């Protein structure tokens, strides 16, 4: 699957095949609905290609295996879902502190706790803000189609090595389980030179160590400043988003991941009904496109955040808008995706209320 021909493929399989095409040399994973097909797919493909595959004893072990593998300069990944990704938070903090290029795919299900296998978007906070200790940031990419699952998997491996930082591909049960046409093409990203830091054995040089612990206070402080300078560079270079018909819009529907599909459809219906709606969709949830949202808010455009959680991305949109326009929320915690009709009628009610109040 390396040409431009479109194939009908499930999101989970698309991620797995894209990882192979991106040069992922090792996969370490543990079953967890709704992402288990990724491991199943790779369990036959990786040995065929002479690459590494381990059914880890836990998600804890799986992500630490990834840390070991990627510290040697090879590409490796693990995949999991929400409550099991919670188990990996310690390792993500280490991976940031160690500056090792871990790639983690989270195909979200409902929470908190075990929750259930319904699709949901409740891991925005877990991904963007993380549950690990200390000051760190992870690059988070949110695909909305199976094609984007392919494209962003390629990008995840590239960004992880380019910046020596963990990357999360944040999909959800809907994307993981549905079939859609997608083409794989070639991995468009160049190979990153890892020779200055990768652990390859102390041949012709001194031993190298990759670690986050600095018993010297000044070194620890400097390390964190260095990390945050890197995050600034990432924000400058890699922040990405899509926007549709925002130029003349009064109200901008905002969503991430697969909810993007429904706000685009809702925007069209609202425009037919005479409501000037636009769409804004962050591709990188971290770094978050605050600057662009702020520009749009300055123009007096209101934002309606549509998400399958209790209002997690809402906080980042509010932070970006900085009180310059109105921010509202249309949401459901999990389960049946908010339909185009529901979004349209909710927006209509908001517009009516605003009109009645003379706002």
């Amino acid at each position: 699957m390396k040409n431009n021909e479109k194939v009908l493929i499930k999101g989970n399989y698309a991620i797995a095949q894209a990882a192979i095409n991106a040069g992922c040399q090792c996969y370490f994973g543990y079953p967890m609905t709704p992402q288990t097909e990724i491991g199943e797919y790779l369990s036959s493909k990786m040995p065929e290609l002479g690459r590494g595959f381990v059914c880890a004893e836990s998600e804890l072990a799986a992500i630490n295996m990834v840390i070991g593998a990627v510290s040697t300069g090879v590409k490796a990944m693990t995949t999991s879902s929400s409550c099991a990704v919670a188990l990996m938070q310690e390792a993500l903090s280490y991976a940031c502190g160690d500056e090792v290029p871990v790639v983690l795919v989270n195909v979200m299900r409902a929470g908190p706790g075990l929750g259930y296998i319904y699709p949901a978007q409740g891991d925005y906070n877990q991904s963007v803000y993380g549950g690990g200790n200390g000051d760190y940031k992870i690059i988070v990419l949110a695909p909305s189609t199976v094609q984007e699952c392919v494209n962003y998997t390629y990008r995840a491996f590239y960004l992880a090595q380019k910046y020596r930082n963990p990357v999360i591909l944040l999909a959800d049960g809907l994307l993981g389980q549905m079939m859609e046409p997608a083409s794989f093409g070639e991995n468009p990203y160049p190979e990153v030179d890892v020779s200055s830091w990768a652990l390859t054995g102390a041949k012709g040089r001194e031993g190298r160590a990759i670690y986050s612990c600095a018993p010297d206070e000044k070194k620890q402080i400097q390390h964190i400043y260095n990390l945050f300078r890197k995050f600034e560079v990432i924000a400058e270079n890699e922040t990405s988003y899509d926007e549709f018909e925002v130029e003349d819009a009064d109200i901008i529907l905002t969503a991430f991941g697969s909810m993007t599909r429904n706000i685009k459809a809702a925007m069209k219906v609202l425009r037919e009904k005479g409501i000037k709606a636009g769409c804004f969709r962050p591709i990188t949830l971290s770094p978050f496109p605050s600057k662009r949202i702020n520009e749009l808010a300055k123009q007096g455009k209101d934002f309606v955040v549509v998400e399958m959680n209790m209002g997690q991305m809402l906080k980042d949109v509010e932070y970006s808008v900085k009180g310059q326009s109105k921010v509202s929320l249309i949401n459901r915690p999990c389960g049946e995706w908010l339909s185009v009709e529901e979004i349209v009628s909710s927006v209509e009610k908001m517009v009516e209320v605003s009109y009645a109040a003379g706002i």
Partner: protein
Amino acid sequence: MQQVFSIPNSMKKDFKYTFCPGCDHGIAVRLVAELIDEMGLKEKTICSTSIGCSVFLYDFLDVDCIEAPHGRACASATGVKRANPDKFVFTYQGDGDFASIGLAESMHTALRGEKVAAICINNTTYGMTGGQMGPTTIMGQITTTSPAGRNVDYNGYPIKIAEHIALCDGTAFSARVALDTVPHINEAKKALKKAFQVQLDGLGFGFVEILSSCPTNWHMSPEDAHKRVREEMMPVFPLGVFKDITAEVK
């Protein structure tokens, strides 16, 4: 004049041990470095380090090291080895790291027969945090979290690590050694060499548990601490080779 003693090539030349005076870690690390030199492994070695008294291993050993979170050294070593089957990979962990918080990772690495070596320093206590009860604390032993002595009703029993690892089908070699006397140090080096060799021969998981003194947390002189290793630890944790598939073949 013949030089009879020098710092092994695989140790850094400007290091300062963070180990307490009289602790056996220093001997263990030196044995590892000597073997890396003697077996010609330095250029292909990647060590997965751990959390605890061993945390600064990368400051002493002049080999490539990846820091693993507490208990995860065997998982990290698995990742290194699967990505680089031609490299020599080992972990260096304490008993808390290997057999308490990391027991799942340790056992499963042995069960998978990962071609890595693991070294576990057993000093019957959590040393780095100041002498709390650990998975190997022996019955009746007083620690800061077992002030009345380890008691079955409250604390259950210590784990016999080398015997458990020997039961795993993927283990090629498992032994328990001590560093209290010169003959024991020589035996320890032989066991470590075997644990390294089974990896190089692609036979499976190599494991050595090293009984170690902890004079600081035991509140003993180094000499008395070694006496305790002999008189109190060895009856509970007998020295010996519990599995050696190369011997079985012969």
